[in-house]
């Protein structure tokens, strides 16, 4: 299973690398001007060295249609209230973005993983997580994504995003994660 923070961490590294390259290229402050001494003999002419081959590389950033693109530009997680599988108002913009992205990248298949906090029992939470993943699936289908491209699974309380045992962790762990399973660039 891809860790939800994997792509984000990689992006941060790319940005850092770009920043340090920029630092190297910046102009250095001018040093003190030495008094002109006796003219040195002119160096014999040399032809300028041949420029090295220029390789064209992808600019650091997100490949459109990649998992990273989806995670950053659409968003993979929506959150739920306690013991609820009703899509919250803050989930709909994320799911609309997911639907737009999935419409554009029509080869992509996803698996929606329903998750619950640890303040419930095992089997009830498998059922509740299934309700959550299905609620997301239904929404995406209502936005035109074929149901055949969407699998669902419930991890119940067994794959918490946040290992903490407090209200904040529980709120983060009540989620549905849309994971790309195939077709990404």
């Amino acid at each position, binding site marked *: 299973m891809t860790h939800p923070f994997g792509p984000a961490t990689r992006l941060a590294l790319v940005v850092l690398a770009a920043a340090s390259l920029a630092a190297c290229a910046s102009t250095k402050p001018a040093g003190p001007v030495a008094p002109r001494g006796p003219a040195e003999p002119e160096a014999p002419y040399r032809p300028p060295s041949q420029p090295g081959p220029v390789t064209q590389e992808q600019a650091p950033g997100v490949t459109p249609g990649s998992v990273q693109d989806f995670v950053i530009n659409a968003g993979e997680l929506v959150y739920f209230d306690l013991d609820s599988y009703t899509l919250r108002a803050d989930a709909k913009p994320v799911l609309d973005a997911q639907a737009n992205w999935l419409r554009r990248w029509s080869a992509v298949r996803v698996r929606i993983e329903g998750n619950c906090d640890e303040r419930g029992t095992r*089997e009830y939470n498998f059922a509740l997580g*299934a309700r959550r993943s299905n609620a997301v699936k239904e929404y995406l289908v209502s936005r035109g994504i074929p149901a055949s491209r969407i*699998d669902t699974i419930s991890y119940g309380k*067994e794959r918490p995003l946040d290992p903490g045992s407090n209200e904040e962790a529980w709120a983060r762990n009540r989620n549905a994660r849309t994971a790309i399973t195939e077709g990404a660039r």
Partner: protein
Amino acid sequence: MFRTKNLFSVLLAALATLLAAAPIAARADIVVNVDQGVTQPLPIAIPAFGGSSVGGQVSQVVTADLQRSGLFRPLDPNTFVQKRIDVNLQPQFDQWKQISAQALVTGQVTNDGDGRLRVDFRLWDVYAGEQLLGLQFTTTPENWRRLAHKIADAVYEKLTGEKGYFDTRVVFVAESGTKAKRIRRLAIMDQDGANPSYLTDGSYMVFTPRFSSNSQEITFMALRPTGASIYLLNIETGRQEALGHYPGMVFAPRFSPDGRKVAFSVEKAGNSDIYVMDLGSHATSRVTTDPAIDTSPSFSPDGSQMVFNSDRSGSPQIYVMNADGSGAHRISGGGGRYTAPVWSPDGKLIAFTKQEGGQFHIGVMNADGSGERILTSSYLDEGPTWAPNSRVIMFFRDSAGGGPRLWTVDVTGRVTAQAPYPLSASDPAWSPLLN
């Protein structure tokens, strides 16, 4: 990976024959009342069994079983006037009265000529000065622990009037790794924690194993990123069989009392309902049709009814229905959220998990929903399973940020103890008494 333990491959010949030499007690003056719980556990003396070198080990296992039950208080062998007692001689009861022993167990282990192990033991009522029990068991030498458990069961039954539960095993989920990437392996052990072994390799998650009535088969749930499955596993042969294939979630498998069917939950389009599969034909029928969550089924011992978990009233509660799905009615009444109901083997009680006031509890209620009693309380107490005598419940307990451990509580709630398994574990299921 899979290794059949010798417990089943070697047949235990439990030849229980009454020893002829001693008088047979017509009545027992000492009685342990299991219904009241025990505020004063019965003082019992169990001197090291004589004969073979295994004798001392056998009596230690008997002692540990009886002690863990909470109903008995085995006395310190250092206080015994006689350290070793000839099993064929009448004890000097005055010596045992001096240390306030009410019951005395004497025994002797010998190697039979054919390589088998034989144990003779007697249970004595110290104050009445009479024998309550005299039995002989034989088995293969590697099975000596089962022999000890059978003695403990015999003592327990004689003194409480209830069947014992020591010659049993527990299947459970052994857990390791971090919370977010927990590794879960199906595991099995004797009820006293001995002989633990793994049944799956941890490459996929497993949950909620249950024994069939013959103790040879387990049903459990597996969860992989590609989906959920339920399986039958024969623990003697290692043969594993998937019970159908389902596009959605499938979970909470339970055997019927006759072992011929499995009830479980199937999720379709977000709705979980209970189904029953005939294991012979694999014909499957849907038992609940409510749009709410219906899961965690548990058959009544006669197979005619099922208790299950549903949130059709708006919050998870406990319901009972006929095995065909008719006549469903709610039996949990109080506040709080009720889940994971399990019918007791004697049919009288339903054990459950209850969530209330920020805590989780294990409790019991009568099968009609009356007489609810809360037995435990912690950050997370979950997943009760019954000992075959309906007197002890095993469950798992987790603390915030800790790891789950197996615990037991007696049905009166007086004796709560960590089960003798020292590592992270959850989802225990108790076997029936072994044959």
